[in-house]
């Protein structure tokens, strides 16, 4: 039984009830007593309503949602319900019928109403949508139309019931089917003082209903903000390439009526060719089980004279297919993209099938547009991003972000600021009624991003990976690295965390029934990502969960704390990003391989203007800081150039200055090297100033994230990669550093390095996985590739070595203790043999390469990059 209530009364009731135990003195008066009982009564009825609202919500949720899409309508029927075992159980009826009984408000009827619409409005407070201006109501067109609720008047019974919404269809009055023809008559025939039963039918709903999510970006368009192009533009670009994303389902062969029935989702919409091959994909993914006992993982096709890689992901009888051209993205990288997308969809919707059924299509389109754009390396319309010489997409999966090392003081400041937010200590801002209520959300953890670097994280590893995944896939990090992101706000429910699979947890453990939400706030170039939990110790949230404006404001306040006068976090971050002097110094490959044509020779000679004085000596051509050189090597090689010998002699004299000088190009001697040193000395004057600071304090080691990069006497570091899959962080030279050493050859070298790493890693994964039976014979411990770079006349060349070591080996070799011994073991093949002179020593850079696979936990394994100069 419902009573009519005004909304204000309800508010007051709640408000007062919560405070009534405080206002004890007011209780004394009997007036207040009466008021209180009335309030409690109201509260109870309100709670009743809420309960009904919830059940109605869950009913709606059960019925699922429908996509009204022009091309791909998916009829739901009984048969389909049976085949879709993975979907939630649906009711038999397509749509829900709601029956509400009212006491019509006859007092408002004046008897002058001419149309049923007006009567209805006055009686029940329901406005029915009028298709025409009411005059030609009985035409054939409108005869068949349904009676759709346009609105519900506030303060009326219908509004109070909370069950009638815009879009509902009135189908029966007092169990008599109603249409436009008999609407007015029925209404007029209603007996007064009797309750009227109205039956409504919920429509097919467009848009998500069960969860509330926000993705707010500048210009309200993700594609436009991140990439500078509209969705349609991107889609037309993509349709030129052979790429597609599809979610296909296996349609029983009898239901051949609609050709497009098996496509639940396809992107880009203009893609025809790959879509026409979808039968192939479905068949392969399902029939391969008969042949080899496993579902298909990937395929290669030749389409339009281009090779296309296709990866599959099964989900029951459905399959998610991603296809991209081979010349733009390798198969390994495509698998990474697929993993990323799959994880993201599962994260947000806890199931691939539900993801495609429930999510907003426009959001999905834009997300895929951004992902495809990034993966395929299309050019963004906005300020072109610096061309990374490393194709990092190959190595780094989607849940990995770059991390930035700050000094310990700055890090402490960030930590403090984040901790303040996490403590949720904002009593001053709470409204009275909330002050003593259970908090709505608790903060599970926060993390801070500056531009596209992770600065500080207080999240658990897996949550951090999820956050990284979300930000990467949506391209939000690209956005923040380029512009201020004050308008960005994200609120998403992380459904896969909310609905954990109970069977995977230890027996007897009952997980709290809590829901997790991700909130991302952008201010200037920062992102503050907060993971909130509703449930466990905070109040449970049912139905749609909206972000608290309080939390949003708090988040913004937090970020603004980073920019106060005392704390210039942005400046500090910029400094660590651009200041290349204090970090590991890189070298450019071009300087090593000098082109010994006469023209260049003269040029290089001419460039030898700044005299190499001991104090102003540039760092060696490779910009590696080095200890004093071994002169034996130099003397062995005969210089064919007089100026060479002068240089070397000069360096020889420098040696007498003592051990603590950063000698000039003191690495392995030879004409090319010194020439290149001259070239470099002219080329980058900045290194001179840098070397000044370096000169005094000879820091023999570089530190990368607390790990020492041990160096020897002569080496050249081209690049390094520290990839921690577990935490989802990547350490590599910053963009500025890379830009300084960028050249075509450098890009080539690094590209090969990346490819080699990828190859080696995949071989390791294949071999070290436990299912591999022939392991006993062929367990790979070390894998090394030695590149040699030759120029035309074999005069100048250098070698780079890429080296991967499996984790088990570290135990045997006691890596931590005997780093040098290990390096000697592995690298001295290249010392003692062949064209390399005997006395050269090598610098090894050992970078931990953490590798956490799903099945096995591997201890850190090492990846060594090493460069050595040879004659």
């Amino acid at each position: 039984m419902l009573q009519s209530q005004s909304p204000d009364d309800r508010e007051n009731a709640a408000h007062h009830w919560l405070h009534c135990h405080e206002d004890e003195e007011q209780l004394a008066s009997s007036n207040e007593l009466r008021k209180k009982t009335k309030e409690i009564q109201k509260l109870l009825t309100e709670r009743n309503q809420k309960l009904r609202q919830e059940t109605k919500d869950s009913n709606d949720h059960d019925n699922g949602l429908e996509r009204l899409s022009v091309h791909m309508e998916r009829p739901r029927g009984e048969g389909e319900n049976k085949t879709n075992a993975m979907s939630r159980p649906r009711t038999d009826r397509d749509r829900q019928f709601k029956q509400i009984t009212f006491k019509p408000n006859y007092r408002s009827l004046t008897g002058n109403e001419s149309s049923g619409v007006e009567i209805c409005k006055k009686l029940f407070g329901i406005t029915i949508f009028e298709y025409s201006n009411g005059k030609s109501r009985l035409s054939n067109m409108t005869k068949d139309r349904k009676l759709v609720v346009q609105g519900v008047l506030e303060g009326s019974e219908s509004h109070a019931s909370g069950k009638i919404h815009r879009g509902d269809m009135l189908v029966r009055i007092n169990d008599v089917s109603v249409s436009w023809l008999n609407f007015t008559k029925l209404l007029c025939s209603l007996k007064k003082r009797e309750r009227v039963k109205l039956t409504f039918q919920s429509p097919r709903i467009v848009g998500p209903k069960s969860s509330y999510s926000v993705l707010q970006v500048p210009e309200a368009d993700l594609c436009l903000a991140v990439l500078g192009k509209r969705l349609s533009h991107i889609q037309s670009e993509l349709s030129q390439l052979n790429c597609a994303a599809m979610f296909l389902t296996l349609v029983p062969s009898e239901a051949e009526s609609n050709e497009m029935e098996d496509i639940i989702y396809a992107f880009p919409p203009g893609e025809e060719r790959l879509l026409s091959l979808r039968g192939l994909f479905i068949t392969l993914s399902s029939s391969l089980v008969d042949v080899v006992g496993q579902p298909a993982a990937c395929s290669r096709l030749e389409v339009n004279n281009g090779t296309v890689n296709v990866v599959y992901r099964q989900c029951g009888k459905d399959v998610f297919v991603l296809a991209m051209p081979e010349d733009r993205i390798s198969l390994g990288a495509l698998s990474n993209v697929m993993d990323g997308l799959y994880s993201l969809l599962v994260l947000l919707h806890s199931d691939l099938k539900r993801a495609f059924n429930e999510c907003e299509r426009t959001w999905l389109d834009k997300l895929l547009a951004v992902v495809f754009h990034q993966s395929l390396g299309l050019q963004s319309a906005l300020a072109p991003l610096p061309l990374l010489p490393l194709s990092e997409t190959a190595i780094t999966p989607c849940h990995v972000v770059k991390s930035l090392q700050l000094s310990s003081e700055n890090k402490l400041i960030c930590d403090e600021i984040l901790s303040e937010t996490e403590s949720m200590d904002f009593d001053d801002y709470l409204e009275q009624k909330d002050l003593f209520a259970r908090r709505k959300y608790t903060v599970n953890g926060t993390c801070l991003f500056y531009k596209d670097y992770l600065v500080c994280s207080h999240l658990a590893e897996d949550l951090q990976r999820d956050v990284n995944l979300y930000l990467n896939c949506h391209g939000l990090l690209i956005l923040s690295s380029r512009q201020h992101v004050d308008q960005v706000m994200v609120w998403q429910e992380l459904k896969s965390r909310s609905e954990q699979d109970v069977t995977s947890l230890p027996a007897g453990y009952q997980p709290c029934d809590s829901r997790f939400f991700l909130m991302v706030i952008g201010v200037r170039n920062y992102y503050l990502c907060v993971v909130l939990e509703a449930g466990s110790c905070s109040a449970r949230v049912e139905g749609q969960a909206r972000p608290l404006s309080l939390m949003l404001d708090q988040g913004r306040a937090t970020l603004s704390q980073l920019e106060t006068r005392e704390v210039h976090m942005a400046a500090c971050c910029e400094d660590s990003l651009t200041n290349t002097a204090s970090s590991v110094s890189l070298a450019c490959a071009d300087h090593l391989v000098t082109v010994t044509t006469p023209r260049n020779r003269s040029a290089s000679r001419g460039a030898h203007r700044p005299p190499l004085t001991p104090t102003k000596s540039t760092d060696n051509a490779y910009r590696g800081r080095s200890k004093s050189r071994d002169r034996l090597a130099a003397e062995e090689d005969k210089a064919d150039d007089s100026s060479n010998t002068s240089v070397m002699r000069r360096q020889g004299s420098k040696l007498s200055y003592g051990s603590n000088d950063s000698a000039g190009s003191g690495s392995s001697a030879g004409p090319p090297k010194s020439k290149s040193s001259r070239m470099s000395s002219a080329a980058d004057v900045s290194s001179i100033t840098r070397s000044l600071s370096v000169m005094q304090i000879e820091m023999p080691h570089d530190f990368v994230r607390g790990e020492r990069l041990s160096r020897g006497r002569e080496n050249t570091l081209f690049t390094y990669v520290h990839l921690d899959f577990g935490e989802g962080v990547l350490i590599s030279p910053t963009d500025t550093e890379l830009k300084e050493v960028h050249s075509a050859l450098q890009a080539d070298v690094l590209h090969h390095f990346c490819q080699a790493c990828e190859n080696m890693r995949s071989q390791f994964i294949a071999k070290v996985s436990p299912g591999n039976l022939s392991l006993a014979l062929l367990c790979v411990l070390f894998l090394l590739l030695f590149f040699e770079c030759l120029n035309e006349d074999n005069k100048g060349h250098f070698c780079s070595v890429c080296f991967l070591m499996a984790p088990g080996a570290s135990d045997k070799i006691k890596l931590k203790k005997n780093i040098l011994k290990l390096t000697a073991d592995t690298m001295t093949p290249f010392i003692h043999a062949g064209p390399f002179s005997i006395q050269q020593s090598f610098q090894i850079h050992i970078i931990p390469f953490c590798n956490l696979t799903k099945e096995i936990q591997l201890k850190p394994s090492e990846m060594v990059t090493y460069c050595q100069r040879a004659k």
Partner: protein
Amino acid sequence: MDGLYLICVTSGSGLPVFTRSVGNVKQLPFPVIGSLNAVHMFAANHEAELKSTATEDARIVWKEFHDSLVLIAVHCGNGRVVDCELERLLDRTWAAMVLLYGLEELRQIRNVERFKREIKVCHPLIDTLLRRVELPVFSDVTGAVEGVLASEATALQNFLEAFVEAADTPYGCLLSHGRLVGATAKWWDLSATELVLLSLLGLSFSPCSCRDVPIYLPDKSPTVPHRLMTFKLMAHVEVWVICGPTPSLSQLEMEIARFWVAAVDTLHQVRQIHPRNFPASIDVDNNILGFILINAATHHSVTSVDVRREGKDSGELRGRREALREFYGSVWDSQMGGPVTEEASTDVKHTITDSYTVYSSHKCYAHICGNYQIFVLFSSKIPTYAMRNVCKKTLDAFVKDKSVMI
């Protein structure tokens, strides 16, 4: 389930022609074959070509030849194969079919039933191709025909030339244990596929004193048949010639005694070289368990897994072969042999020259120097830093030795 299937179906109608398999795998039922072909045809009908599909453990490769036959290779079980390896297998299978059946008949199959019966002549060779690890040679992966290095080779060359002239043909070669000892210049001119297939054909033959086999050289004359005549000189030593219609087998057989009697002792010595496969004058390090040495220019290779005539049992030798194959595949297919991207902007080529891998029971090293490639299998005892040095010295020893020609 660990094995390899090779399925051949006709292109238009999808009728299965034959299915060869190796390994402990069950027979593929007809519907499965049909579905495999169906997906390929479906793609072809939509102007796409399905090249390969992989699952976690298995890989399937399709290839269509001359719009007439479709070959499908299915590899399942552990062991990582890359697409190009299986594609090579399919190419060789096609070449094998051309070798023994002729291109014209393959291109236009009139009567499928008759074709099915007649193509059975290729089955032994195809089975040999599929055996892979069981083979005593590595030709199928390296693409280079294997030989023995013998200092007596020059002496025997004269005998061979004389014999071949008597047979009125420029193609002739001398084999010991299935490996080339010497061959005429024209024989070396044959393409790599032909050389490899012919040597594998030898492995697929059952032993007999002489035979006359019609073959079509896949690259030189795919439509005109020649006759391959093989004669057994002594156990494990054979001489082969490829002739036209004359002379006949019996005629040439009678000539053998005349030409080859004088060479018996030399042939004995050459036969002794197996299984070391290179002369005693070349010394190799004690730690080397086996090696593959390839001259990419001439498609000639020397391999050995029993360098010191230790008399190991076949299981051990098989293990070494497997290790070498694995190493070769992992290094060559995925890395070194990949297409070298020539950066137009730079004058320098950045290519892989060396690679090593340390396994739990052995170590391997690969080195490329010019046209020569050497893949060496070491025991675990060798210190890692010494591998390169040893490898290079070994390669030098082989290349610089004047008495042998690699």
